[in-house]
């Protein structure tokens, strides 16, 4: 299916790209003054900017397609595969965000140097800089670019230079690369705020016009009920209606996924671009408020236009309902027999009039650009701060604690005087942005599909999450713990795919009457955790003076007995933070379902969910006020 862009559509697209480029490039001079400005916006970001930037980054060009596809095949409840990450998100906000900000790091990886010591820490830090900076983020770059390519194929002209979607994607990457390399995190965040607004406007336009085409909300919901009766499937319930789906889609993810999987944007305990935004906050309060803003909008507000679009597609295209009914699109399975559920979202573009199609395509550009700008800046920060600087540092032992040392230009405040050295470091950072973009383009050319990239990241990081939480809470965790967790997770993920491993998983699933997918993740997560805990206890702890310095600076909570006694300081109390964690989780789930029930015409359920959300909000509000006092 292709749709033709009119002159107005092309004009709107060009206008959007020019504005994004102009706003981004505006910050070039400021970003060029130091690495602190380039990677952390001089630690001067307010909560609304850093939070919106996180939301924009997590909103990639593939996200609307995936969510609408979920709804089309398995109904609204399928979204639990990512809604479960909310628990980890609120945990980051209330238990870890202050510790991250207090550590005054430049990157998530720098924590390794601050928390652990010796050769294993140096090895781990360098490895993670390459693994996250060049490999994992390139795979993410590849999957979002593949998704952008899929959208472009629907709207590009049939002939001419731009008919080749690769040329269009290359142009888009080129424009984005220019302002990302020049403007650093300030440019990234400023354009993220703009692009998020644009991306949401596109999502709202598609949903409004799609629902209008389906006869309005009430008529659309009534028609979906008819389809439910005809197919025996549930599309409108917030929870799956069969036990098998309930376990696979809700219970297992709630029990394991949010703490076990290192998923970009939902890293256990915070990490990646979420951590980078917290480091860039004005202070701890802005870090916490911004991350909470991200969590609320990301989970409670943003998905509903996409969900409504998926339901409208189900109603408007009889072929989709037919495919669902005859089993071509199967539960938990996705696409078979040439049916791609993700094509439903672009299919809805046919209801967009002249001009609005251009705006919606611009919204996809916005979603895509805001994701890759963050990836490029973040990856470059890993390569410069955690690979290059420790290697070239004059600190003893090739950079032990190089990141923590006061000489590290990125760890100092915005008042660091501008020097030729820091300007040279920014040039290096800009070169790294280009290198990472090239690596991303290479991975894109090799990646079979967007889903393939997602699967690789999701499955090969399963089980690595618990150690990332434990390093803040248990003094005994050391560099070997993280090394063991990463190695065990990869090896076990490969093993469960061998014929013997697959048979074991299948047998276990049969014995527990669970689908294979519901067995595999818990198995890998539990085994990985057992391995790293054993390795931790068999290897020596981090040196006491090193731990004492970390503990004094960061003041984490949890099991820090010997370190607390040595320093004479008590660990931070966690009781109130844990209460706020529960309350905020109830708040966001409450608002999420209040919004959903309200839109789908269930006022009583909406009122109950809204009341739960409100109660959670009151507890959170009081807790935050006390924290400020």
């Amino acid at each position, binding site marked *: 299916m292709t749709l033709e862009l009119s002159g107005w559509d092309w*004009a709107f697209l060009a*206008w959007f790209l020019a504005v994004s480029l*102009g*706003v981004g490039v505006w910050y070039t001079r400021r970003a060029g003054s130091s690495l602190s400005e380039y990677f952390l916006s001089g630690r001067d970001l307010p909560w609304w900017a850093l939070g919106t930037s996180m939301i924009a980054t997590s909103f990639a060009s593939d996200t609307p397609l995936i969510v609408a596809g979920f709804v089309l095949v398995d109904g609204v409840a399928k979204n639990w595969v990512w809604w479960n990450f909310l628990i980890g998100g609120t945990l980051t906000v209330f238990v870890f965000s202050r510790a991250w900000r207090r550590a005054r790091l430049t990157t998530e990886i720098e924590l390794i140097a601050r928390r652990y010591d010796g050769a294993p820490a140096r090895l781990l830090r360098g490895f993670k800089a390459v693994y996250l900076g060049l490999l994992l983020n390139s795979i993410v770059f590849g999957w979002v670019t593949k998704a952008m390519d899929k959208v472009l194929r629907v709207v590009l002209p049939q002939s001419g230079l731009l008919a080749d979607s690769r040329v269009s994607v290359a142009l888009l990457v080129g424009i984005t690369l220019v302002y990302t390399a020049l403007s650093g995190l300030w440019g990234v965040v*400023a*354009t993220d705020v703009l692009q998020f607004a644009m991306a949401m406007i596109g999502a709202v*336009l598609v949903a409004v016009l799609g629902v209008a085409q389906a006869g309005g909300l009430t008529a659309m919901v009534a028609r979906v009920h008819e389809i439910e009766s005809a197919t025996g499937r549930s599309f409108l319930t917030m929870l799956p209606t069969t036990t098998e789906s309930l376990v696979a889609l809700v219970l297992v993810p709630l029990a394991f996924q949010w703490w076990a999987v290192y998923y970009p944007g939902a890293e256990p305990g915070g990490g990646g671009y979420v951590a980078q935004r917290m480091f860039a906050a004005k202070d701890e309060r802005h870090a916490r408020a911004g991350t909470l803003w991200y969590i609320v909008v990301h989970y409670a507000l943003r998905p509903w236009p996409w969900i409504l679009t998926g339901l409208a597609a189900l109603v408007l295209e009889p072929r989709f309902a037919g495919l669902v009914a005859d089993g071509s699109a199967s539960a938990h399975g996705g696409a078979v027999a040439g049916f791609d559920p993700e094509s439903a979202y672009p299919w809805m573009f046919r209801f967009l009039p002249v001009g609005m199609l251009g705006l919606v395509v611009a919204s996809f550009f916005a979603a895509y650009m805001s994701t890759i700008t963050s990836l490029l800046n973040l990856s470059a920060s890993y390569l410069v701060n955690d690979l290059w600087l420790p290697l070239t540092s004059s600190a003893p032992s090739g950079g032990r604690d190089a990141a923590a040392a006061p000489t590290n230009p990125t760890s100092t405040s915005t008042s660091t005087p501008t020097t030729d050295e820091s300007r040279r470091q920014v040039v290096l950072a800009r070169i790294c942005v280009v290198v990472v973009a090239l690596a991303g383009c290479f991975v894109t050319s090799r990646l079979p599909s967007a889903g393939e990239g997602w699967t690789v990241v999701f499955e090969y990081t399963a089980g690595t999450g618990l150690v990332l939480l434990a390093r803040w809470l248990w003094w005994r965790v050391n560099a070997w713990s993280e090394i063991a967790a990463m190695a065990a997770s990869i090896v076990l993920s490969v093993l469960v795919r061998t014929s013997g491993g697959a048979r074991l998983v299948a047998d276990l699933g049969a014995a527990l009457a669970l689908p294979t997918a519901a067995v595999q993740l818990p198995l890998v997560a539990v085994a990985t955790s057992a391995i790293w805990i054993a390795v931790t206890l068999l290897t020596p702890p981090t040196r006491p003076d090193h731990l004492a310095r970390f503990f004094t600076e960061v003041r984490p909570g949890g099991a820090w007995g010997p370190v607390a006694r040595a320093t004479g300081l008590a660990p931070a109390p966690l009781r109130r933070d844990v209460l706020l964690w529960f309350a905020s989780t109830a708040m966001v789930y409450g608002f999420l379902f209040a919004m959903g029930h309200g839109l789908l015409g269930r006022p009583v359920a909406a009122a109950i969910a809204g009341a739960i959300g409100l109660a959670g909000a009151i507890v959170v509000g009081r807790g935050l006020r006390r924290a400020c006092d």
Partner: protein
Amino acid sequence: MNASRERPYLPMAIGFHLLALPLFVAVFLAQGGAGRWANGLCGLAMVAVGLVLQRTRTR
């Protein structure tokens, strides 16, 4: 202290105003009431955010 430090959000504000323009143009291109209202309201929201950012200064 230079101007960009006092008002670092000014480029964002200008960006919001500039991106509101195509939304207002799209009001006239829309074929139905839903499209006209959606574009108009989104355009106004962009201008409102732009105005707020325009007046925001750092501490």
